[in-house]
């Protein structure tokens, strides 16, 4: 916990224009928004409530592999093959980076 004086210093520093916490240079990149669109089915933390599979524990490459397999119809799926087919390689990489990168 910072001392009162330190807080005053810090508070003043906060008056400087600084990037918003999650916005890199004032904008949210599309990879982040696309990754967030996955949460609609996989839950707000990506951990998959109930029967929904979790996407939160996978590595970036793991997610890329999974989404690519779905897109190529190379793996068992009910709906993910239909979803994955909608994304380009670049989009899959961007989505995977965000999901794997989040805490």
């Amino acid at each position: 916990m910072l001392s009162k004086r330190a807080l005053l210093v810090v508070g003043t520093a906060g008056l400087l224009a600084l990037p918003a916490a999650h916005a890199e240079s004032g904008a949210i990149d599309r990879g982040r928004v696309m990754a967030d669109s996955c949460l609609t089915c996989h839950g707000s933390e990506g951990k998959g409530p109930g029967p929904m599979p979790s996407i939160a524990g996978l590595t970036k490459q793991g997610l890329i592999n999974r989404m690519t397999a779905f897109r190529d119809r190379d793996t068992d799926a009910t709906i993910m093959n239909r979803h994955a087919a909608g994304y380009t390689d670049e989009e899959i990489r961007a989505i995977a980076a965000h999901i794997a990168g989040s805490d």
Partner: protein
Amino acid sequence: MMGTTCSTWTRRQLLKAGGIGGIALAFGGAARGAGSTGAAKRVVVVGGGAGGATCAKYLRRYDPSIRVTLVERDPHYYTCFGGNWYLGGFHKLEDLRHGYDALRKNHGVAVVHDEVTGWDPDKGQVTLAEGKALPFDRLVVAPGIDFRWDQVAGMSEADTERVPHAWKGGEQYRLLRRQLAAMDDGGTVVLCPPANPFRCPPGPYERASLIADYLKAKKPNSKVLVLDAKDGFSKQGLFEEGWRQLYGDRIEWVAGSQGGVLHRVDPKQRKVLTQEGFQEHRADVLNVIPPQRAGKIARTMGLTDDSGWCPVDQRTFESTLRPNVHVLGDAAIAGAMPKSGHSANNQAKLTAAAVVALFNDREVPEPTVANTCYSLVGPRYGISVAAVYRYRDGQLRGVEGAGGVSPGDAEEFLRVREARYTRGWYAAITDDIFG
């Protein structure tokens, strides 16, 4: 408020985010908009449903320096999605109810339970029925739908206790459920779905399915008659296959051009006339789902066009009729995206990111978004339709080769799996919207 939001972060994230400034934000220091010189940016979100609540939450997630006020008349939101499971008798109404505590506590959204009655675009304020006017720098309007009673001859809103629409959540569903429970065996339930576009394209057919499931068990001599304004419907092949497998001939669907179009409703007698008035159908339970348009406040605010819906720039969902206002969810014209809770949720994230970009004079991200509609043909028989949308040539268009419906003629285990995912989807989306 800032403290509440940032308390969920680790110190490492705060330091990464903006060094000293990050810590300043965490300790409730000056909430300065990024890249701006003045006070914190304020966004007012009108409507606390799937679209509005998601947008309020994600605005805070994307940029905690933005002050977000969500105005929602009701203290709780009853989802329409999942409502048919309650009508079918295997789900509780309370499980469809969601509150705003998490939005307040976890995300620092200021939630005001009041009704927006209008606005002053020049002053940049919305007027409330009870409280003081709320100033905004940008406005998000997600008012859902309103019904076109002028297009239903013979009935009005005043008749909806006798002839429920149950096309908005909560009390209307309770009414319809009670009527179904009270109906004698041998009765006929008549459902009248509207012409496109309307909220939740597969909804009426999931409803017919689950009412049939209930009747099969409890009132086996009863029937469901669907008098449709349309000649086709969402996931029709799959629904009809499921109806044959599960319900025999318990559900009869009449296409618009084959006599399904409503000519007139007699709510007192629960009768409908079709075929220009030459055919009469008596119902023991009558569910008329009227044609729709954008929620009333959108009209009041001048955000609708002649179609009754709200035209927007589909990269940002900013109204094309008024600057500084975004409209999303059912009320908006969103290209190929259907009117669904899932669409509203995705549009809300796109809009939140766009608002952040606009506040900072940056390029909007134009993410690819999606929709998924899960339907239960029976409690253990699920089907789905999915689509992915990308902005191209002025519209959100379905991505070629992606999306589609569940396979027809599938094994039982697939239907059981999708039924499980249907329930999982509900838990996930409501967690995403309200959690």
